[in-house]
């Protein structure tokens, strides 16, 4: 059943409201700007797509248009953060942190200045734009960087809260957001703290612990409900902070004895890898990985692509059954 502490939306399974996580960012960064005048927002010719235009409209004097130049954007932001501003810089994740990763490494991570990288259009759910614009490697490249916190919001509301929290953190942050409207699962009352995972679903005697990140958390919940009907209990934990990873994952995994990870990202180096690294050290268990298996995306509707790359609810159900069969 849905975990009461998560205070999730009542209509989570029944025609839930939908909004893009990037719009959650757009609303959150305006609030962050209201709370702290050091907050500035940069974009590389994508003000509307990144929802930076909300901030542009509210605080034109604190909005910086850098043109199509992501390397410049990252380093201008680094200079601003070095001075004492709190810059959020926005583009598509394939370009930022994709194209400007070295600049981020040197001038933000090694330099240790609190700039916030906001990568939109993460995952195959970008849809018709095709493989070039579907970021599937960003978690891997950002969680490899010391000093970076890595956040992947499950819905627009969590995206808003994550943005507010990032502004207060005082160290480098990467946040990934999606293009497509996805179900709003959380409410204003749902707890959010960087580094703290939230259990969204808990069966009485779970056979599998599902750890999910990003909007696919909703597919994990759909799978959990279906599995419960089949007499298979699971937990679904929303892991919005991929780095630092919440160590309570170990206890949740131990209790179930098997794990499925869910992410809209390459399996190599992604969220599932982070979970596997932790569990291999603390309590080796069978794990199945939902995500993209060493392939690029392609054009299509988000729904077609999520199904094709086996990240839909039926694929999660299949993975749960497979990992149960592997339990010794």
């Amino acid at each position, binding site marked *: 059943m849905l975990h009461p502490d998560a205070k999730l939306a009542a209509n989570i399974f029944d025609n839930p409201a939908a909004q893009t996580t990037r719009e959650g960012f757009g609303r959150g960064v305006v609030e962050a700007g209201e709370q702290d005048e050091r907050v500035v927002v940069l974009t590389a010719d994508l003000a509307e797509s990144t929802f930076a235009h909300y901030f542009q409209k509210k605080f034109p004097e604190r909005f910086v248009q850098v*043109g199509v130049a992501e390397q*410049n954007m990252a380093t*201008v932001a*680094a*200079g*601003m953060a*070095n001075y004492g501003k709190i810059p959020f810089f926005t583009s598509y994740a394939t370009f930022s942190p994709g194209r400007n990763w070295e600049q981020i490494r040197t001038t933000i991570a090694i*330099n*240790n200045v609190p700039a916030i990288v906001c990568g939109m259009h993460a995952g195959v759910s970008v849809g018709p734009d095709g493989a070039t614009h579907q970021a599937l490697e960003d978690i891997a490249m950002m969680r490899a960087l010391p000093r970076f916190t890595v956040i992947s919001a499950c819905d627009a509301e969590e995206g808003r809260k994550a943005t507010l929290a990032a502004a207060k953190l005082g160290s480098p942050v990467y946040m990934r957001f999606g293009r497509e409207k996805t179900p709003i699962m959380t409410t204003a009352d749902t707890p959010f703290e960087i580094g703290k995972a939230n259990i969204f679903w808990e069966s009485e005697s779970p056979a599998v612990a599902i750890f999910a990140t990003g909007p696919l958390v909703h597919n994990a919940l759909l799978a959990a409900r279906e599995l419960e009907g089949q007499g298979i209990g699971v937990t679904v934990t929303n892991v919005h902070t991929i780095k630092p990873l919440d160590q309570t994952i170990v206890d949740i995994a131990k209790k179930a004895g098997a794990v499925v990870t869910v992410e809209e990202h390459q399996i190599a180096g992604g969220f599932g890898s982070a979970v596997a690294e932790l569990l291999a050290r603390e309590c080796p268990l069978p794990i199945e990985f939902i995500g993209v298996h060493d392939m690029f995306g392609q054009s299509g509707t988000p729904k077609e692509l999520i199904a094709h790359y086996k990240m839909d609810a039926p694929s999660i159900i299949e993975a749960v059954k497979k990992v149960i069969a592997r339990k010794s």
Partner: protein
Amino acid sequence: MEPLTDREIRELSHKAHAIRKTIIEMLAAAGSGHLAGPLGMADIFTALYFHILKHDPKDPEWSERDRLMLSNGHITPVRYATMAHAGYFPVEECLTLRKFGSRLQGHPEREKLPGVETTSGPLGSGLSQASGYAYAARMDGKTFRVICLMSDGEQEEGNTWEAAMFAGKYRLTNLTAIMDRNNIQIDGNTEDIMPLEPLRDKYEAFNWHVIEVDGHNIPQFIAACDEARSIREKPTIIIAHTTPGKGIPTIENDYRWHGTPPGKGPTDKVPAEKQKEVFLQELETSGK
């Protein structure tokens, strides 16, 4: 600023000479690092730290200080040596360059040594950091200047020109860029590796005010910095023509010494084991 007296010019030249000596000694002790660029920029660094910059060696974090950002981090030995001679830390500490546990990292790191302002090394991203810094400072009405030193080789990086466009668009008049135009890079002469000229025309086309100086003529360089301060419409770049390896005739203008310390360089003129000693002698002679 008032023009320098002859005596002041002589004093600055002596400082530059002492800094060059320290550079040779610290690189020989490190056994790796770049020699030609630091020697070529010693006069400019001397002018900056002993005449141009508003700064306080005893308070490197002083909020109103001018910010000196070094984009081509590999010439950091000249910055370390100059900072030491200016009183930021003891000159002897220069001998820890590139050693385990040293504050003097092979390429500068902001958090390791107060006063280095930013982390750099990978080329092409200093001008944009300096631009972001200058932009932010102007938002808050700050009056200090942001100065970015960069190499000619890194004009081959796309990021440099993205920054040039940005600083031009936003008329960052509180920003001065200084390019070390020494015509060499690791693999050869710049005009063979990737022709850069006409650099003046390029920056003018990007809406910069351009001044060219002899980078070893301290009064000329100081006058250029004064002129940069007076330009109210555009950012200014000073293209400083320098001689790589300046002060050691054996290595001057020889690109093979771009990234090599004394004791590890080409041996066709001076055997490796004699390089430090010979270079220090040549420096003494050329300084007279």
